[in-house]
């Protein structure tokens, strides 16, 4: 009886190993990007809290401070929607995972959020 493996069998094994390694690598990269997106979400939270404090106290935001807060949030912007005493702050930014990151904070002018 002939022993050993044919060249085709060996090529299939190597191809399967290659596909598995590539898949593992891609999943790992996606995990890293998702974690990076989570850090950006936390940064956006700090940005929104700053805007919320300014809305609560009626003071305008300082461009220099906003610049520092958004330095690591590409294309970040904060929009305000006012409905009586309720102000809805929406922060958007370019997320490393693809779709734009978005975080919302509702502020009651005169206290509380």
């Amino acid at each position, binding site marked *: 009886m002939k022993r050993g493996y044919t060249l085709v069998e060996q090529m299939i094994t190597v191809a399967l190993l290659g596909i598995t390694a590539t898949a593992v690598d891609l999943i*790992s*990269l996606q995990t890293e990007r998702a*974690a*990076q997106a*989570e*850090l950006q979400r936390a*940064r956006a939270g700090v940005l929104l809290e*700053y805007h919320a404090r300014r809305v609560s106290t009626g003071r305008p935001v300082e461009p220099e401070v906003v610049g520092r807060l958004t330095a690591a949030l590409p294309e970040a912007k904060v929009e305000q929607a006012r409905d009586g005493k309720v102000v809805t702050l929406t922060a958007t930014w370019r997320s490393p995972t693809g779709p734009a990151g978005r975080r919302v904070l509702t502020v009651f002018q005169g206290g509380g959020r």
Partner: protein
Amino acid sequence: MKRARGFTAIELAVCLSISAVLVPSVFVFARSLESTQRVAQWHLENADAVQRIDEALQRDAQRGAMEQGGLAWGGSCPVRYVVTEALALERQAGEACGGTQVLATGVRAMTRVPGGVALSFGLALREDLLQQTDVFFALEAP
């Protein structure tokens, strides 16, 4: 006829050549996977820490003016923020004011900048490779 046992020199040479290519590749791949996972874990820990630090800083900032150029508040409940030698960011206060809390680890520096505080998180992936990310916290007097 008696069958020869063992390997020929060519078979051994082929086997060694394939191993010479595969073993380092697997090693490099495993290291790359490990560092990617470490970086992912680091980002998640930083995300938690950012929220914790911002809450603590804002709570303390509401209690009074920060000492000139420093990261401490005086008054009846003195609080100060310190980056220890172990690269941990500690909020140090008396027991009545929350005691000493570790807010984050892997903090390379915390500096007072106009309008707030800049924090630098670092992760040493290798001796010669440091991943770094900066986070700014806005601070204002009440």
